[in-house]
């Protein structure tokens, strides 16, 4: 027991050390891809609270990312030409952006509170199309099809941008290097918070709403309000992810916040493992890094052919792999990557691990052999 704890601590420390070392050794490609992965991870954690823990499907996640990203830009940049802006200090803009996403979620939470499962999923599809429409048409705020330049974040006079130049340990620290650490911090914070929520009082309520709505109500959980609340929380996560994304992009691109993005997020949490924070992160990294890697190392890979020479191109290979991954995980890895991890960890140990750990399992996990999870009378 204690040995496993020590082991986990050590691995954790190793991971942290590695994460910190990255900017000193790896080039821009890795940092850029890494940043996208981090922002994806934050968003995925949020979606997992909604879909994994509370059993609410959402295809509208991309919309809230857009809200976050654009709100940050609008709050943070000075008005210029027909483009509006509040010119607030960027940290304030970032916070407000997350809140804005929250507000958006709040406004829509009646939907999140009223609709269930797959119905909510499709309903939220509307947000995507609505969002795109606004992004393209509300030019003064969004910059329309052009998108807008993202003002670099500036914390206590330290700018997360290429200039003013900065060299750390003889490594030139540009925007990417600096953002990397910001990303790490944000991700860590987001993950810890979500974990706290899941393992605490709200987590129990959410899980029970997923498993037996009426029972939750009778035990004192205000079901509709909780659904709405989780919807709001997950949209704030998306908003945060959006801010991070904007900073990584350095420009907002309306096309990006489309349905494919939302689908990607669902894929992330399934691959990672429904309901688990670590899983969401793993899934996000997998989904967002895979295509990048295949594109970069296309030349080296046997199955994929060079662009332009016909045959399976890297991009196609990436999409195929990732589609297959989604299917394969559900078929062969109940609980996703996270499930795999915890199974391997639990392999030696006794079958019943602490309930707090147990709660992370999604209803698709192996121990759902009880009639409750299958018979319509009770679920």
């Amino acid at each position, binding site marked *: 027991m204690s040995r496993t704890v020590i082991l986990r601590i050590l691995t954790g420390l190793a991971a942290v050390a590695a994460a910190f070392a990255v900017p000193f050794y790896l080039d821009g490609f890795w940092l850029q891809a890494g940043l996208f992965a981090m922002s994806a991870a934050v968003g995925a954690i949020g979606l997992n609270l909604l879909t994994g823990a509370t059993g609410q499907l959402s295809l509208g996640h991309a919309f809230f990312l857009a809200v976050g990203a654009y709100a940050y830009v609008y709050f943070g940049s000075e008005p210029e030409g027909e483009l509006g802006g509040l010119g607030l200090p960027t940290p304030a803009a970032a916070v407000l952006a997350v809140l804005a996403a929250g507000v958006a979620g709040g406004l829509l939470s009646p939907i999140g509170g009223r609709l269930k499962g797959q119905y909510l999923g499709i309903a939220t599809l509307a947000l995507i199309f609505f969002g795109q429409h606004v992004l393209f048409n509300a030019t003064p705020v969004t910059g329309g099809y052009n998108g807008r330049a993202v003002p670099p974040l500036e914390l206590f006079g330290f700018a997360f941008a290429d200039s003013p130049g900065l060299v750390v340990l003889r490594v030139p620290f540009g925007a990417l290097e600096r953002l990397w650490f910001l990303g790490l911090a944000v991700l860590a914070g987001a993950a810890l*918070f*979500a974990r*706290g*929520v899941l*393992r*605490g*009082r*709200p*987590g*129990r*309520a959410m*899980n*029970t709403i*997923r*498993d*037996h709505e*009426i*029972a*939750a*109500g*009778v*035990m*004192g*959980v*205000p*079901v509709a309000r909780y659904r709405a*609340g989780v919807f709001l*929380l997950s949209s704030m996560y998306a908003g945060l992810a959006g801010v991070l994304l904007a900073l990584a992009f350095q420009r907002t691109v309306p096309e990006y916040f489309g349905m494919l993005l939302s689908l990607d997020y669902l894929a992330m949490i399934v691959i990672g493992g429904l309901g688990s924070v670590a899983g969401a992160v793993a899934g996000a990294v997998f989904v967002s890094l895979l295509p990048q890697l295949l594109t970069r190392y296309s030349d080296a890979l046997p199955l994929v052919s060079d662009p332009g020479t016909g045959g399976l191109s890297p991009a196609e290979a990436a999409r195929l792999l990732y589609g297959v991954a989604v299917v394969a995980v559900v078929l062969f890895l109940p609980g996703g990557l996270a499930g795999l991890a915890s199974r391997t960890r639990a392999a030696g140990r006794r079958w*019943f*691990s*602490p*309930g*707090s750990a*147990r*709660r992370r*399992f*999604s*209803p698709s*996990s192996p*121990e*759902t*052999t*009880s009639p*409750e*999870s299958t018979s319509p*009378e*009770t679920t």
Partner: protein
Amino acid sequence: MTGTYQPDGTAPPVLEVRDVTVRFAGLTALDGVGFTVEPGSVHALIGPNGAGKSTCFNVLSGVYRATSGSVRFGDAELTGLPPHRVAALGIARTFQNIALSPHLSVRDNLMLGRHRLTRAGFVAAGLRLPSARGEAARHSGRVAEIAAFAGLADLLDCPVGLLPYGVRKRVELARALCVEPRLLLLDEPVAGMNGGERRDMAGLIVAVRESLGISILLVEHDMGMVMRLADTVTVLDFGRRIATGPPERVQDDPEVVRAYLGAAARDSAGDAARGTAREAARETGRDRPRDGATGTAPGVASGGESA
């Protein structure tokens, strides 16, 4: 928060159900039903299948909205309150078909019962504020007590999905107790249990009443149990109240016999009521519908009588 009951020593208030009617598309599940649950008493609600017992529970716990009528708990009006507000008043229930979270451990299922008594919201829990931590510690202490009381002490970390049926039933009761209720609604607590578990559950219910002095409203088809545990019995049939009063009187009521017990049942249940000692009590406690079966199944009667 208004209308929230924080547990204290005081005795529970009276529950007054006044001609409650519930209509569903096409049928009247409850038709002007009324009864009163005296503080600290065990009140049984019996009646043939489909009589409206569970519907009544659903009205009391806010799951259904009564078409008309009123339900007063002390000076609070329950009709029209959403379930969580009802719970906030200190009313807890169990379900006829088990309604637990199969993937959560027993502990977590019980902790859910503490929901109304705890405060930690998303922020507090997310940031693990001291308030949230302290709260959790305090309440998991109490949860452990209740678990021990219900004989679940060593199952706390076991996912409910892996437990046998009978044990799950006890988890449900424990979860309801975790609400620290003043009124406990039990919907067929021993259905589908075998002898040992029936007795165990019966024991639990008695113990609850003795040590907490709360009111209990009980739906059960096990006449033996009803006879033994209940102070008052209300009988429903097709949504109407056909009888109410102390068990002995009710079970001799011809209406009740016709609608519910069936001819032969009376005697044996009668024995139980007249308290031909623990024998009959345990016997009926163990093997319930025997009472019903005796009417039809020769050879069993003897088996029963010889007790």
